[in-house]
């Protein structure tokens, strides 16, 4: 006995199955669902209702984690269309992008030791964020087109954004 488990995350949140979503909308749907279904609301309810509430809230939490993060959202959306981003299995990347990544990582290593560490890290962070935003905008266009070549391109963008996200995280750690 399970509630709603056939729905995809977008349907669960009653949002259009699209990449271009407003983070405020996602968060407000999340809060509405939590307010209604959190196990705290079923503390004295019958056993089947308590079990359903637990399953449903767990699913709502998982959906929110995916939908609020643009990279996870895009990966999930591609998955719904049968496109596997294959980060674990397919490691081939665009050479230009890889060169750029290596250069960024060298800057990160240098910044760690530098006297003006904070200034360097800040400028690095801005650069990484810029690269990320550029791809995010292109991703939006790809999903709008929704053609096969556009989705193929979207797959590459998601893989690159994953790299950038990781790098941004490492910069944050050092700051």
């Amino acid at each position, binding site marked *: *006995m*399970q*509630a*709603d488990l056939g729905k995809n995350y977008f349907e*669960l*949140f*009653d949002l259009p199955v699209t990449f271009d979503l407003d983070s405020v909308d996602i*968060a*407000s*749907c999340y*809060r*509405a*669902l*939590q*307010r*209604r*279904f*959190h*196990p*705290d609301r079923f*503390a*004295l*309810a*019958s*056993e*089947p*209702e308590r079990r*359903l*509430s*637990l*399953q*449903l*809230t*767990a*699913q709502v*939490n*998982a959906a*929110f*984690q995916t939908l609020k993060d643009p990279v996870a959202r895009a990966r999930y959306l591609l998955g719904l269309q049968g496109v596997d981003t294959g980060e674990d299995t397919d490691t081939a990347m665009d050479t230009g992008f890889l060169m750029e990544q290596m250069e960024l990582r060298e800057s990160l290593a240098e910044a760690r030791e530098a006297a003006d560490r904070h200034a360097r890290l800040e400028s690095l962070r801005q650069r990484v964020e810029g690269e990320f935003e550029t791809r995010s905008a292109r991703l939006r266009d790809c999903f709008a087109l929704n053609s096969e070549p556009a989705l193929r391109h979207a797959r590459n963008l998601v893989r690159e954004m994953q790299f950038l996200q990781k790098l941004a995280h490492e910069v*944050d750690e050092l700051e």
Partner: protein
Amino acid sequence: MALLQISEPGLSTAPHERRLAVGIDLGTTNSLVAAVRSGIADTLPDEQGRHLLPSVVHYRRGVDPEVGEAALEAAADDPLNTIASVKRLMGRGVEDVKRLGNLLPYEFSPGASAMPSIKTVAGDRSPVEISAEILRALKLRAETTLGGELSGAVITVPAYFDDAQRQATKDAARLAGLNVLRLLNEPTAAAVAYGLDQSAEGVFAIYDLGGGTFDISILRLNRGVFEVLATAGDSALGGDDMDHALADWMWQQAGLNEHADRKLQRRLLRDARAAKQALTEAATVAVQVLRPDGTVWQGEFTRATLVQLVDPLIDRTLAPTRRALKDAGLKPKDILDVVMVGGSTRMPRVQEKVEAFFGRKPLTTIDPDKVVAIGAAIQADILAGNKPDSDMLLLDVIPLSLGLEIMGGMVEKIIPRNSTIPTVRAQEFTTFKDGQTALLIHVLQGERDLVSDCRSLARFELRGIPPMVAGAARIRVTFQVDADGLLSVAAREQGTGAEATIMVKPSYGLTDDEIERMLRDSIAHASEDNSARNLREQQVDADRVLEAVQAALRADGEKYLSRDERTVIDAALAALHNVRTGTDLMAIKKAIIAVDTATQAFAARRMDASVRTALAGHRLDEFKS
């Protein structure tokens, strides 16, 4: 057959009955119980007007154990049978206890499970059983004061408590006959007591300096969601250390030698505590020491002396505070408010130092001993359904990552720390040998990569995998963490459709058989009629089920049930209603299960429909808030 009365939709059968629910702060040194009465949350005193119940249990031969003040008095004469600070042992394995061993005077005996027991004249007692005695005393106090049976309790636990410690706490409550509505993190409870959940967004620090422990937690409130960002502390630092520092000073001033007797030491400690408390108001306090030779030393404590003695101890709380802030990626100035918890935060010097550190005055208007219990009571009142309009929602996160052992003694994280609960995650694993038919699943909690650095929660085997070549089996391991932070793990081989599912209870915990035995023991000890009590519990359960299902039918019965389905449910309800007043325990149990089974589809349909309404209405909600 008595027919069940069913009222017209929209007409409630009875005026809303207030359910009795309490908040319990099960502390290391002291415990409290609180309830909301006439809209005000406060702790409940015993007949002598004392709010704090010392968390001490004194076991005696042949009679029920003493709990609280009476047990504390027995500590000096009968130390081996008087158990204090049992919270430190909750959910701990034999290995952990060995590490703590030299700090505790008790004799341990290995239990049937991995959980250690303490030898007493009344037999071996596990930390869960000892905690249950404390909870039982609080439950009795609450039921006497409030004049009725409790429908449930919210019990607080430290934010850093791992799965084992939470499960042990819940087991203790079950043993004490309490229906746990929720385990709530202590810092979250303190924040609720101050109504911070009603405030705007922000980050709060909860500074908790008790008798023997110090905890600091950084909480973020984000659109009605409380999230624990970081916790740190010192499990061997508290007000007791200050008393010792003051007593040592008196000792030196009085020129006592090393070998004075225990009685004099205890008296000095008591005088030191009194002087410390008096200095909250007074500028100086006169003290005297009666030396063993009959002469008297007279002296006085000044604020300046006190500051000199306690400052090094207070400074030791600031190191974990800095660490917690760093973990949360924050600076002291980012903190919107600081909540003071624990008796030792009454000291003006502690408040001064905390204010200097954060650059703002800490919140001290609620009694720091009671604040956690009060917050728990507010939450219990809401969970019991006494405030249907309340919008408060406390979303907790798990404090530590959960994972599995993989090849090479490494840990693969399945659920990362700070994931909002409840949560479910699944991951697929495979066999690494040809023809492998079983798989050992080792569940761990912690942030480190090596198995040896994490806390082992459970080991279990998945058997009956059909023989295949290595890597062909697909074993899906599912972790589920409920709203209390408790984990269950299931594993299933799916490749061939062959299925084997095992739910585990972490290995520290008690097996259901052990709980059964303890329930029986404790009931025998409480010299109550065993079957009468069990029966009463089943009847309360039956009432809860009847009430819940009838409310659901009144609201949505017409909408989601066919005539036939309704007949089946009504029959199950009528059957339960019939046996409920009887004395056949098993019949009531079976009737409850029958109602649960009959209402499953109904519950699912209501839930589905609610999802749609919740979302249809949510934009309106946003305007209101």
